[in-house]
C-alpha cells in the first residue's frame, strides 16, 4: 500500500501550567487520503489545536509529541524550521475563519496572491500575475481585474474568503486545512464558499480537513467525520451516518441544535461523562 497523504499516530499536545503540563490533545490518531475529513467538536475540544499541530504552528512552549506525524511519508515533527517554511503554504495550506483578520490589511489582494505564488513556485512576475488572475476567476470572482487592486477592507466577507482560498490554493498544496472557513459568513454565502472550496480541492486532487462546530455542514460536505471532545477522538464515522451516531456525545451534540422542521419545548444541553476520556485527567 502506498503512503497515505497524512498519517497521524498518537499525537499529543501539552501546555505548561501551574501544575506541570496540561494536555490539550491526548493522543489522537487518524490517516487521510485524497478525501474530505471533517473534525467537529465544541470550543476547547482540541480540533483547532490538531490542525495547528500538523502545520507546526503552535507556540514554542507547547510540547508536541507523536509516534508518527507524516505527510506523504515525510516526517513533519523532525523537519527543520527552514523545511517547514516550504511546507507551510506550499504543501499544506490553511484557510482561517475570518478573512478580515487573516489577510494583510496593507497589501492589495493581487499582491498577496502573487506573493504566495512566487514564494512557493519560482516564476516571473508576469507569470504570477497571469496565474493570479486565472485563480481569482477559478474562485468565481466576477471581475478579477478590478478585485486585484482592492485592499482587504474593501471586500465583503464572502469575497475575502474567496481571496483567501485563491491565495492558499495557488501553489497547489497537497493538503488543505480549513479551520471554520464559513462561520464568520452569512448562511446565504456559506454554501457558495464551500462549493468553491470543494471544486478547487477536487480539481487539484488535494486532501481536505474541515474543522468546524457545525454538524449539519460537516455531514453535508465531508466524506468522513471525527468527533472530538476533551482532546480525544470520541467517534469516527462516515459523514452520512452522523445522524445515526452511536456515541452519547455525538448524539447530544446533534440534539442541541434547534430543529428547523418541528418545534421542541426545550433544547438538550450536552452533559459530560468523565468516563468518555479513556485516560485520567491530571
Amino acid at each position, binding site marked *: 500500500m502506498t503512503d497515505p497523504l497524512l498519517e497521524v499516530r498518537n499525537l499529543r499536545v501539552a501546555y505548561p501550567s501551574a501544575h506541570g503540563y496540561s494536555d490539550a490533545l491526548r493522543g489522537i490518531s487518524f490517516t487521510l487520503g485524497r478525501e474530505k475529513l471533517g473534525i467537529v467538536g*465544541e470550543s476547547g475540544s482540541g480540533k483547532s489545536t490538531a490542525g495547528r499541530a500538523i502545520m507546526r504552528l503552535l507556540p514554542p512552549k507547547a510540547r508536541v509529541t507523536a509516534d508518527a506525524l507524516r505527510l506523504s511519508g515525510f516526517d513533519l515533527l523532525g523537519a527543520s524550521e527552514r523545511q517547514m517554511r516550504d511546507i507551510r503554504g506550499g504543501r499544506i495550506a490553511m484557510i482561517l475563519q475570518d478573512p478580515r483578520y487573516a489577510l494583510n490589511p496593507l497589501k492589495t489582494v493581487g499582491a498577496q496572491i502573487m506573493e504566495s505564488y512566487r514564494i512557493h513556485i519560482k516564476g516571473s512576475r508576469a507569470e504570477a500575475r497571469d496565474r493570479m488572475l486565472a485563480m481569482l476567476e477559478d474562485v468565481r470572482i466576477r471581475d478579477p481585474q478590478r478585485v486585484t487592486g482592492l485592499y482587504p477592507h474593501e471586500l465583503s466577507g464572502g469575497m475575502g474568503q474567496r481571496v483567501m482560498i485563491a491565495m492558499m490554493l495557488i501553489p497547489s498544496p497537497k493538503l488543505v486545512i480549513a479551520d471554520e472557513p464559513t462561520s464568520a459568513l452569512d*448562511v446565504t454565502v456559506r454554501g457558495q464558499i464551500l462549493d468553491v472550496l470543494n471544486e478547487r480541492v477536487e480539481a487539484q486532487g488535494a486532501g481536505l480537513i474541515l474543522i468546524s462546530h457545525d454538524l449539519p*455542514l460537516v455531514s453535508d460536505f465531508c466524506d468522513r467525520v471525527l468527533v472530538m471532545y476533551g482532546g480525544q477522538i470520541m467517534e469516527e464515522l462516515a459523514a452520512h451516518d452522523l445522524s445515526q451516531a452511536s456515541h452519547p456525545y455525538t448524539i447530544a451534540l446533534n440534539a442541541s441544535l*434547534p430543529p*428547523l422542521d418541528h418545534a*421542541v419545548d426545550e*433544547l438538550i444541553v450536552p452533559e459530560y461523562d468523565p468516563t468518555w476520556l479513556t485516560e485520567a485527567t491530571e
Partner: protein
Amino acid sequence: MTTPSLEIVSLSVAFGHGRASVQAVDKASFRVARGEAFGIIGESGSGKSTILRAITGLHDGYDGDVLINGNPAPRPRNRDFFKTVQMVFQDPYSSLHPRRMIRATLMEPLEIYRLDRREARIAQVLLDVGLAPEFAYRYPHQLSGGQRQRVAVARALLLEPEILLLDEPTSALDVSVQAGVLNVLNALRRARGLSYVMVSHDLRVVAHMCSRIAVMTQGRIVEELTVEDLRAQRATQPYTRTLIAASRAAVTAD
C-alpha cells in the same frame, strides 16, 4: 385590540450625508404583543441590528415612531425608558467590562436606579440565569463564553424590564452552549411574560425562539410570517425562499 408592548411605525435610519448617504433601515414597521417573541432575520448589512440600536436610542437620528405600550419613546431616551427596555448584545467577550468583577458590573444599574436589597437582587438574578452566586466574585476572563452571555442577560434583567432586545445573543457561542442560553431565555420569557425582539441570521435559532418572524434585506422588511409558515416553507418572497433553502441545505441532505 390591546396596545402592543412595542410598536415601530415606518422607522427609517440613514447614515452619511448627500450622495454618500446609505439608507440602513427603510420604513420598517412591526408590533410585538406582550409576552411575545418576535424575530428578525436577514444577512449582514440588512439593517436588522440597526433597528434594535434605533429602538434603544443608540442611533438617535431616526425617522418614524417607536412606541412603548402605545406611548412614543422619549428622545433622548430617559431612565424610565431603560427600566422598560433592555438590550443584550452579540459578543459577550466585548460587552462586559474586563477589569470589573461581575458583581461590580451588576451593581451599576442598581446604583443608578437607587434600588434596595442590592446583594439579594444580584444573587437572585444570577440564579435566574443558571449561575451560582459565587460567580459574582469573578472577572469576565474567568468565565466561558456561555457564562458571560448569561451575565449579560442577568444585567439586562436586573431592572425587571418588560421588553428585551436580543442582538444575536448566541452567534458567538458553540451549539452545545447555545442550547443552554436559549433554554434560559425561553424559561425567563415564560416565567415573567417578557416580550422579546430577537435578531439573528440563524434561521434555526429564530424558529426555535420566536412565534412571528420578519425577514429583512437591504434595509427593508420584505416579509413577515409565522413560525408555522416558516417551518412549512410557505414563504411568498423569493428572498425568504433563498434564505430558507440555504439553511435547510444540510437538513435535507440526510
